[in-house]
């Protein structure tokens, strides 16, 4: 089985995150990581590959210089090889630009042997849009099985279970298919020393837009369907109160809520 797992390089959510004058995420470098939720996608890819045997897991990213760190992490976990789509024209891409580049890269990877499964995380913890997986499935014309809390492949078909706000669902589709997994799907393995050493020898292929046949005008700021017109940090919360319970804190809390007409 050939599995492509999409991984994104994001600013560390524990770090101070901010936006620049242009409204884009400031990437000072140094404090970026593999999007935590993509570790679940990599884990799912590795587990499915191990179960199927004779499989290949390709970690794919679309991102600027430095983003290969996310791919490297996937390789350390056990993915076989990496692909990065890297091109100055990608700067400022919205979800559809990123999808165009990812889809072209998946097709390119499929050129030397069909791809059975495309896996993604449930959301990138920088933008938290969760738009990409469904858009990528549409672009690649693959069955869309998203937000999997459980995923299994058997007899050429994939099955998932997903938990929505109001319902629990199971879905099935023949391969090839696109699956996004949640953090409930598994517990990502931690790369061990052997994995880290092995990853040094694994190849990361860097592709420009021309290599995957994408028109630069269709992606990046040029192709984006949205444009940031302003951004500002939220003003700090004012008049904050911190009390230690002396036996009356519950009453004081109720009074605080009543004063603010919140009860």
């Amino acid at each position: 089985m050939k599995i492509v797992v999409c991984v994104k390089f994001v600013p560390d959510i524990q770090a101070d995150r901010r936006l620049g004058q242009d409204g884009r995420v400031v990437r000072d470098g140094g404090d970026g990581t593999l999007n935590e939720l993509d570790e679940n996608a990599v884990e799912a890819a590795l587990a499915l590959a191990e179960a199927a045997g004779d499989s290949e897991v390709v970690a794919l990213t679309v991102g600027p210089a430095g983003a290969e760190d996310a791919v490297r992490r996937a390789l350390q976990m056990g993915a076989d090889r990496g692909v990065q789509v890297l091109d100055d024209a990608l700067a400022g891409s919205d979800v559809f630009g990123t999808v165009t580049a990812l889809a072209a890269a998946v097709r390119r990877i499929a050129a030397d042997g069909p791809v059975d499964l495309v896996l993604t995380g449930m959301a990138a913890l920088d933008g938290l849009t969760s738009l990409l997986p469904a858009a990528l499935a549409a672009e690649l014309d693959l069955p869309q099985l998203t937000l999997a809390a459980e995923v299994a492949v058997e007899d050429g078909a994939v099955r998932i279970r997903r938990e929505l706000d109001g319902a629990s669902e199971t879905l099935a589709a023949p391969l090839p298919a696109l699956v996004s997994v949640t953090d409930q799907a598994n517990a990502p393995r931690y790369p061990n020393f052997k994995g880290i050493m092995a990853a040094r020898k694994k190849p990361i292929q860097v592709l420009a837009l021309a290599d995957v046949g994408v028109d630069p005008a269709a992606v990046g700021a040029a192709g984006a369907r949205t444009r940031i017109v302003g951004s500002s940090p939220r003003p700090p919360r004012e008049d904050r109160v911190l009390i230690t319970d002396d036996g009356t804190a519950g009453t004081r809390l109720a009074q605080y809520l009543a004063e603010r007409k919140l009860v």
Partner: protein
Amino acid sequence: MTHPADGPVVVLLDHHTVDGAPRLRPPVLELLTLARGLARHTGAPVHAVALEPGLAAAAADEVGRYGVTVVHDVTVGDADRHLTPVAAEALAAVASRAGASAVLATSTFENKEAAARLGVLTGAGVVSDATGVTREDGEVVVSKTVFAGTWTTRCAITTPLAVVLVKANAVPAEPVDAPTEPRTEGHAVTVSAGARRATLTGRTERAATGRPELAEAQAVVAGGRGTNGDFSAVEELADVLGAAVGATRVATDEGWIGHEAQIGQTGVTISPQLYIGAGISGAVHHRGGMQASGTIVAVNSDPESPIFEIADFGVVGDLFDVLPQAAAEIRRLRG
């Protein structure tokens, strides 16, 4: 079909089932209010789309009170309307037929999936998790918060059709002075093979809890590891406040409460007027789902807990003392 700036603003009607009948979810009324504001700039009408059988008829009076002039009642043949790719094609068909300028929906996971595919199908720009939407210099401009509610951004959608997913509690719902009598337009949409490649093999709707839905509640009381599995104090305070009950992932992983109660980056994102967190440390993953709340109250026995960094009102104390006392005082104040 083109999408002129004065084309209808189309609102997707989300529903839940009450006593066997489809009913609108409260955030839809907020959406209709926002849609009217957006439509006013170009003199466009506000339309609604119903994908659930019986919903168009059941909701006609209510959407009329919010100024809707046309309800599109869509059927999808033998395709499954619960599949989000099917919903996307239904929306694409209505948007095209009506020459819509914008499609508005609530920012749920299902609607995000439908909107993403709608974007691929129509070329529309899509913004999710919006807290506001207006028209400026002809363009649809959307505001949203990012980075766990610590930044606000505004972005313009530059395509003729704009798709905007709005968070609950973005604006108060306001009916119109003179209700309309919406006309119903039926659409039988033929769904493509591409949207039906995955099959829904099972679907179990969750039974209603009797409390407000977490994602749309005006007030939320949440419990974490500090409850040690006993949610009674959290539930008692929630019930006097008419609030929804939420939890951290620790509490849902422990099985103390259902996974649907999880607030955070991988659970439900909430922005109620009031959030009360009890026995919750305030991990970044949890904060990402609640930091945009109006007033934040924290009750935690450890003064070093990071939740106090973002609390408007923090109580260092034992939740099993503080919450019941607060509930009792609220009852007393109400008389």
